[in-house]
């Protein structure tokens, strides 16, 4: 036969979507928040973000080179981790600490477990938690909006009792103390809506997470708007809790995860000694995700019905 034809199993076409495109969209969705953080916290925010992203990409590249694996940095997943980790750091953090966080996120949490798709927890969240534990005072000194020289101050959550409705605008714009990517609720919302519109994420986790926090705040007699707009909740709900690898797959599973996140976050916020509950709530959710997944599978066509009938008999 002179004409050798390729023979493969169907299907013979694939969608235009790719891992790189999805991660690229997440990066785009994070850009407005990056710009806001530079405006609020100054040029330092940009430097810290650049260092963190560069460190994440470098560690991914170096680890894969060392292990003789294919280098996957082109899929942009390390860049996304870098951006998210940076967004969880106060703008005044010394860059070398951010590099330590990047190492923990990329090498320890992601690559040692097998690389993209095999990490048991969100690398950026663990990076943040490790830094918060290791460099507690540095991580908790939140600069006030207006420049890095401003005095360190508590996040609105620490003083939420004193905040009134007039502060809603401050919370929306993010011109208050906090880590660099979590203060500006408006840009996070814009990014989140963009991700939902481009079908990168499902709205299920953010919606149920935020709704649960709002309801529990009302029950606890706290201002739900302050609770929703402060701390790491918006960033966590739209960008960290929706991480594919470490969150449930089905709508049912996402619903469970969203409620779980809301309950844990409120429990930590209302009863714990920490101001911030989002990181730990997401880490806990990451750990129970395999169980949620196994218990929230979809009803399969023609099978669920049979089971129900059998149960009825």
């Amino acid at each position, binding site marked *: *036969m002179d004409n050798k034809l390729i023979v493969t199993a169907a299907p013979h076409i694939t969608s235009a979507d790719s891992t790189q495109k999805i991660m690229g969209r997440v990066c785009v969705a994070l850009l407005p928040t990056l710009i806001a953080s530079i405006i609020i916290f100054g040029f330092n925010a940009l430097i810290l973000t650049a260092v963190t992203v560069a460190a994440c990409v470098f560690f991914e590249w170096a680890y894969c080179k060392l292990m003789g694996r294919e280098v996957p940095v082109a899929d942009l*997943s390390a860049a996304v981790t870098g951006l998210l980790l940076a967004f969880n750091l106060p703008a005044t953090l010394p860059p070398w600490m951010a590099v330590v966080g990047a190492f923990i996120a990329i090498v320890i949490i992601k690559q040692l477990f097998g690389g993209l798709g095999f990490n048991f927890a969100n690398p950026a969240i663990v990076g943040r938690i490790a830094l918060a534990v290791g460099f507690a005072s540095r991580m908790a000194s939140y600069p006030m909006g207006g420049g890095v020289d401003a005095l360190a101050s508590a996040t609105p959550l620490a003083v939420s009792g004193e905040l009134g409705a007039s502060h809603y605008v401050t919370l929306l714009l993010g011109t208050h103390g906090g880590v660099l990517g979590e203060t500006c609720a408006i840009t996070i919302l814009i990014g989140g809506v963009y991700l939902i519109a481009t079908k990168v994420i499902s709205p299920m986790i953010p919606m149920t997470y935020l709704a649960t926090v709002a309801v529990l705040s009302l029950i606890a007699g706290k201002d739900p708007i302050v609770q929703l707009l402060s701390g790491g909740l918006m960033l966590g709900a739209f960008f960290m809790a929706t991480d594919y690898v470490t969150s449930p797959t089905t709508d049912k599973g996402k619903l469970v995860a969203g409620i779980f996140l809301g309950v844990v976050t409120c429990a930590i916020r209302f009863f714990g000694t920490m101001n911030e509950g989002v990181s730990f709530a997401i880490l806990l959710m990451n750990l129970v995700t395999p169980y949620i997944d196994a218990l929230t599978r*979809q009803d399969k066509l023609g099978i669920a019905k049979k089971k129900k009938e059998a149960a009825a008999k």
Partner: protein
Amino acid sequence: MSKFLKRAAQGAQVPHEKRTSNQETVKMPLPSKIVLSMGQHIGAPAAPAVKKGDQVCVGTVVGKAGGFVSCDIHSGVSGTVDSIITITAPNGAAQTAVVIIPDGKQTVDPAIAPPTVTDLKSFQDAVRASGLVGLGGAGFPAAVKLSPKNLDEIDTLLINGAECEPYITSDNRCFLEDTQYILDGIQAVMKYLEIPKCVIGIEGNKPEAIAKMKSVATAGIEVKELPCRYPQGAEKVLIENCTGREVPFPGLPSDVGVVVMNVTSVAFVGKYLKTGMPLTTKRLTVDGDIIKEPKNVEVIIGTPVQELMDFCGGFTDEPGKVLYGGPMMGNCIADLSQPILKNNNAVLAFSKKMAELPKATNCIHCGRCTNACPLGLSAKEIVQAYNDGNVELLVELNADLCMSCGTCSFVCPAKRPLAPSIALAKIMMKNGGKK
């Protein structure tokens, strides 16, 4: 949103590429030979009923059905049996085939006459004698399908005109060109099987076909526009969308009171009842990025693919892949000497560039496969269980429900070959754990 939280079953937004939908069917001239495979249907292969040197006419039986679930094979040309050979079918199995050299006269077999149909039995016999198989692609002998065991429970005839595969437009042409035959066929099936209701399901990307069928639909026949999401034409999906019923697994459409026929099949029934000419020709869409003149062709079954390609102007570039059927579920053929089969509805040819699929990378657990699966399966979990050799989990995940529609592979952003892996998982389930 009744399926909310139950099963996303989003399907996939596959490209349409239906550029031949306005092209009227053209008849291809006689080929230099026809190769009639004895295995053009699901079930036992037919046995050759002729020997080398025999003279055959158009409509002469050359292969006799090998059992109840089997089908006769008829010659589409008049001429001489040249040889009986063994060919390799696309699935790799060896298959007996009868090679006939046409004499160019196209003499019709004197036995060909419109069948006398008076009741269910004679109707089923007529369909059996016509050599009809499910023309949507599965190739299930039609006479068997029209003999459901629970006939009195069947209340709906479902005509599958979804044509959800990209490129293919032969069903669309059937709606527009064979409208009367479709109606005749539907009415015959409804009459003899005493089915009160018929639903014709057509995907929304065929507005002309929908309008045409709506304008001619008689009492009891409803035309339903289906959403443009692959795979609308999958039998179970079609039944759920048109009747709201879920076919149990394992089970058949008849278990929920439905008989499903492809539009081309039912049109053939209508035509056969008028003419008595068995299934010897087929309307095919010939398309693909390297086909010089894409068109809809009426071709004699058994025509070598090479001659069909030549009729469509040949290739504009070196072919990488040639498919029987659409790009989602079609089978690759290994060489162009392969013959056209009864259940083909398209032959597509793609360049090397389009034929090569991107490299698979790590699963990112985005869940697109799970949420797209029309049946609610979780492809990523099934493939993981297969890789782990975990048969128990495969059973729990109902991997054997998979119908290989390819939606999961199509939507995967990591370009993982999920559907072929699930096919392997199904084999592993059957073998009790051996890969």
